[in-house]
């Protein structure tokens, strides 16, 4: 028995008829065709499915789609505006903070949520923010540098 869902995804009103047992991750990928958000484990351990919901970084694999009723959701597709990469995305490229790129959408969303909380995060806070975004390629250092660099530039008024 399907239920209805109304929410805002990347600034757009979205309406769907969904199976109550479907996850928000499944809804974003298979209904909205927003494949940027990835599934790594389906258990909230790897962070590949991280999105921002009502201002908070969350694992979309652990949220039922129905729980997103009236929610404000941002996925990696919502970071760039009108085809223009955001500063955060540009810094990730510049610092080579990605290789295979599978963890990248989740990393970007955790980073974005952190910077929305504070533009002056300590190294510990950056590490805590991405502690559960697993990356097998980069060794994390370039990612930490990209986030720290973005924080500094955004503090100085960059976007």
């Amino acid at each position, binding site marked *: 028995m399907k239920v209805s869902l109304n929410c805002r995804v990347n600034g757009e009103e979205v309406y769907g008829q969904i199976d109550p047992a479907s996850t928000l991750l499944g809804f974003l990928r298979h209904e909205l065709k927003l494949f940027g*958000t*990835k599934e790594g484990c389906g258990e909230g351990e790897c962070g590949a499915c991280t999105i921002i919901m009502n201002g908070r970084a969350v694992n979309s694999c652990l949220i039922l789609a129905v729980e997103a009723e009236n929610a404000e959701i941002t996925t990696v597709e919502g970071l760039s505006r009108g085809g223009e990469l955001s500063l955060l995305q540009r810094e990730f490229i510049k610092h080579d903070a990605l290789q295979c790129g599978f963890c990248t959408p989740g990393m970007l969303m955790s980073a974005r949520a952190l910077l929305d909380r504070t533009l002056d995060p300590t190294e510990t806070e950056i590490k805590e923010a991405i502690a559960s975004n697993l990356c097998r390629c980069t060794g994390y250092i370039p990612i930490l540098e990209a986030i720290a660099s973005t924080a500094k530039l955004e503090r100085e008024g960059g976007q």
Partner: protein
Amino acid sequence: MPEECLQSIGKPSLRREAREKVTGQARYVFDMEMPGMLYAKVLHSPYARAEIVSIELAEAKALPGVKAILTGEDLPYLLGLYMIFSARGRSLSSSSRGDQGRGKNSY
């Protein structure tokens, strides 16, 4: 060599596909969708080196949504260079329980 002469060595090299990856546009196999497609999952042996005594499929086959189950029996040949599936040949019926198709598996 003075650094100004070097074009690539020691210079940053921007990843060509970086843009697709940071915007979520990059398509991985996991993102591909085709009409009527099925999803496969591999069940691994919990033991690195052991003999397969039996494989019971009935309960798994009965689960809703299961279209097919493949075991080594169905693939009695070499795959690629390295992978050989075991439990080949004999069927696993209860009447021949004492003499079932035995196989070894090793990683």
